[in-house]
């Protein structure tokens, strides 16, 4: 019987023959999948718990301290009234960063969409060019827009 060989044509040692290695690989794949699943659950738990805690302690509790006395509408009306009445920059110092932040997020979101449009438009040409030179070309299997495939999401 011929010796087991790797893709480069080198003989493999006895202990790394495919049958034993395949069992190991299946075991590794299972553990890898389990680790990914555990990490995914922990990550999701951490970021959502953090978001809820920040929302509770930084927004809800300060607002609850004035429950029955002040409403969001009162605050909004007061801020708008002060913006109109006061010549001082005080209220504007509060409002301007939010306007700039929302504008920056919208700008970044549009830039991201534009970049993905370019990826989608160009990837097919690159694929065809590389396939012509190398018919056995392999792919990263991302979507045409460069996103993670649904089945690869944990």
């Amino acid at each position, binding site marked *: 019987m011929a010796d087991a060989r790797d893709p480069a044509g080198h003989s493999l040692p006895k202990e*790394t023959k495919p049958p034993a290695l395949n069992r190991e690989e299946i075991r590794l794949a299972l553990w*890898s999948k389990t680790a990914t699943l555990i990490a995914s659950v922990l990550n999701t738990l951490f970021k959502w718990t953090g978001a809820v805690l920040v929302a509770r302690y930084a927004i809800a509790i300060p607002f609850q301290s004035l429950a029955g006395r002040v409403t969001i509408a009162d605050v909004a009306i007061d801020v708008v009234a002060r913006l109109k009445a006061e010549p001082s920059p005080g209220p504007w110092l509060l409002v301007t960063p939010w306007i700039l932040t929302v504008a920056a997020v919208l700008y970044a979101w549009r830039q991201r969409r534009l970049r993905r449009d370019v990826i989608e438009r160009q990837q097919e040409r690159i694929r065809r060019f590389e396939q012509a030179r190398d018919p056995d070309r*392999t792919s990263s299997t991302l979507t045409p827009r460069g996103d993670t495939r649904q089945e690869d999401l944990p």
Partner: protein
Amino acid sequence: MMTLAATLSTGFAALGLWIFFFWLYRDYRIDKVRQDLFRLRDEIWDICAQQQILDRPAHRVLRSRLNGMIRFAHRLTFTWWVTAVTVECFHPTPEIDERHRREVEQALESIETDVADALRSRLSRAHVLMIEHLALVSPVFWVCIIPAVLIAVIGFAWSGWAALLDRIPRGDLVDRQSAVLGT
């Protein structure tokens, strides 16, 4: 009323920072690392096309490694790393690790040395990119790095000020006075 508005504004800003870090920034980092890995994969393709070794294992193995990194970049987090290391401790797979390492080495041994070195450097850069990604998406890294940077800045400033004292004329005045007063 403005105090309440300022408090709420700070609260929303804190929530916004959390959302920014765990959703927007993380998505950006995944796109960034993938973009950098695609650049390295293109460089490998260019080198192999120029050397006409596209069908050799050196190209095939390195490309499949980079494809794997690109495909699973979204999974690479500090939590995943800790979990994977824990699993590895309980169920080590040295044969598979060794086989993967040997697969690359053998593939690179079959081509010219200077080309192999060029390809190896691309693979090393890909590994560095993955480590950088792992660190930069981790809140643990940022929580640890900010105090470390502050300590480094204070330490640097401290040693800088001590050196500055030597250059000031009569800089030894404080030391002499304290010696006199201390006796």
